[in-house]
């Protein structure tokens, strides 16, 4: 049925729930197949590129992207327009990198765009290249997405054959091309400066910032790094123009993808405007599995939410959910301590080891949580855990170190009774001490 995947010799990619109530980013991606260039063009694809190149100046596009309130979907939520404005102050040649490393635990939204509607991303990259004055773009895709790599290579070739990539695109004097580079299993390479190091053929150690990539990035040149979902918004913004600002709540316009996993009836990728609340989102995914009681949400490895947080909006306001939108749902039979231990193990494994507080602190966190899990933790351990959590970020130079204790800090605040119970040798969910 899927000619492209068949031709590329790809095994059938597993079925998951992919649903949308607005049909923007997921418009062509709800079925489990790869949309080729003919179908993409026949359904309006590459018309945003045509409009951008022929009827808009880079400055027109930049102003529109600024007004769109688009924020980065890779985790940090930085305003995209502001980042692009920043690079224009620095000389050419400039580069564009698409961050397709997607390794945050519980995150599987970018792969849906890559595997099902790759031209949406490619079109977004070309328009971005035009806007920021770059002639070369790279996609850095994690090594564990071999199918995505092949599909991107294939789609880029299609785009080249149709004159959307290469020299003098659509007869204009703008030229742009894209190369795909595979990672090889290292969460830290999603951090933008580590990614650049890795793309240059080195170990993926983060660089000291500043200078930031828009000043000093790939090959020491000004570089924009943007997430897959961020870039895939660009053709939609161009197509809708000012009407984009009618989609979703004021200040957080446009679509957002939410990868939902854990104890829900229909785990998958859901698209919505950002006025949806955490509670509504869980309902969209069918509610808690088996009619059990809700306990918590882990936003990947980066934050923990409880019952009281269920009515927060999934937007980028200070109180909003923000980040990548990653939603891992725990029910009453799951244990907070046990889950934190998994996350602590992850950070310990993925710390690149460059900064001592991060390298040692993630190890200490892990050891203390192990004690909580096996019932040997004391009040002293709890105090020490709080102490470490405060200190890891201070001596760290990158986002991994800043966020390594965050889930623990959140859990200490929202689920203090879980820590207390474990100190007394009790696991409320009946998971630990076995």
């Amino acid at each position, binding site marked *: 049925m899927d000619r492209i995947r068949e031709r590329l010799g790809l*095994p059938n*990619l*597993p*079925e*998951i*729930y992919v649903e949308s109530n607005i049909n923007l980013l997921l418009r062509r991606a709800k079925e489990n197949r790869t949309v080729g260039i003919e179908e993409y063009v026949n359904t309006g694809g590459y018309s945003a590129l045509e409009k951008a190149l022929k009827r808009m100046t880079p400055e027109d596009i930049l102003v529109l992207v600024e007004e769109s309130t688009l924020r980065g979907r890779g985790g940090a939520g930085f305003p995209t327009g502001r980042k692009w404005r920043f690079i224009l102050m620095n000389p050419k040649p400039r580069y564009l990198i698409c961050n397709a490393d*997607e*390794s*945050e*635990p*519980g*995150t*599987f939204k970018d*792969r849906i765009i890559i595997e099902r509607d790759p031209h949406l991303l490619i079109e977004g990259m070309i328009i971005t290249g035009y806007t920021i004055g770059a002639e070369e773009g790279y996609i850095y895709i*994690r*090594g*564990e*997405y*071999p*199918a995505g790599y092949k599909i991107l290579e294939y789609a880029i070739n299609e785009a080249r054959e149709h004159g959307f990539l290469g020299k003098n695109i659509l007869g204009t004097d703008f030229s742009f091309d894209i*190369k795909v*580079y*595979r*990672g*090889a*299993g*290292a*969460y830290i390479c999603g951090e933008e400066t580590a990614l650049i190091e*890795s*793309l*240059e*053929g*080195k*170990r*993926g150690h983060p660089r000291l910032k500043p200078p930031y990539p828009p000043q000093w990035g790939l*090959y020491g040149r000004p570089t924009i790094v943007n997430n897959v979902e961020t870039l895939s918004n660009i053709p939609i913004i161009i197509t809708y123009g000012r009407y984009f600002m009618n989609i979703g709540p004021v200040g957080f316009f446009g679509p957002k993808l939410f*990868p*939902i*996993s*854990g*104890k829900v009836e229909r*785990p*998958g*990728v859901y698209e919505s405007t950002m006025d949806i609340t955490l509670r509504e989102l869980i309902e969209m995914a069918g509610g808690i599995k088996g009619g059990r009681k809700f306990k918590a949400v*882990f936003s990947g*490895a980066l934050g923990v939410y409880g019952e009281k947080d269920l009515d927060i909006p999934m937007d980028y306001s200070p109180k909003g959910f923000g980040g990548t939108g990653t939603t*891992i749902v*725990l029910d009453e039979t*799951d244990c907070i301590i*046990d*889950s934190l231990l*998994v*996350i602590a193990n*992850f950070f310990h*494994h*993925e710390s690149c080891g460059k900064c001592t507080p991060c390298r040692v602190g993630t190890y200490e966190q892990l050891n203390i949580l192990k004690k909580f899990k096996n019932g040997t933790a004391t009040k002293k351990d709890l105090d020490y855990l709080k102490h470490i959590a405060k200190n890891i970020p201070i001596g760290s130079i990158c986002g991994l170190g800043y966020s390594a204790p965050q889930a623990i800090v959140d859990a200490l605040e929202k689920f203090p009774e879980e820590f207390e119970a474990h100190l007394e040798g009790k696991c409320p969910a009946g998971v630990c001490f076995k």
Partner: protein
Amino acid sequence: MAYKYLTEDIIKKIDEYRNKFPYKEQAIIPSLHEILEKYRDIPEKSLEELAEYLKVPLSHIEGIVSFYDMFRFKKNARHHIRICRNLPCHLANYQSLLEKIKKLTNADVGKSSADGRWYIELVECIGSCAIAPAFLIDNDLYDGSNLTDEELKKILEKYK
């Protein structure tokens, strides 16, 4: 120099990567992927050959191999099973899947089976949390939710 591991087809690929990217260091990771694909492992000797061919210091390549999880040396087995252990797969009880796979393959985490057919590794999130517990066999991704013992057996039989 005659190469043992850098066969003609691999060298052709390496040359492609050399032409694709401006710096020769950028061919290292893609080349290691090719070596891994062909040998299901990174033979130590292949690193010397790659260093020689690309004219980069061996220590630089070794540094890369030790940094990236996918390139860590392992016992040479024909098929590589990667089971995810991160939170969504943990909540879906990957441990039970692991036990079943261990029994069916006679391999253990970090240890190949005696017949050299299987190697099992626990990995961090592989971006497939909606089908938790998710696992990869070589390049093929599998849905571990609602998987019966019979189905699992059938999947494993595909890999000789």
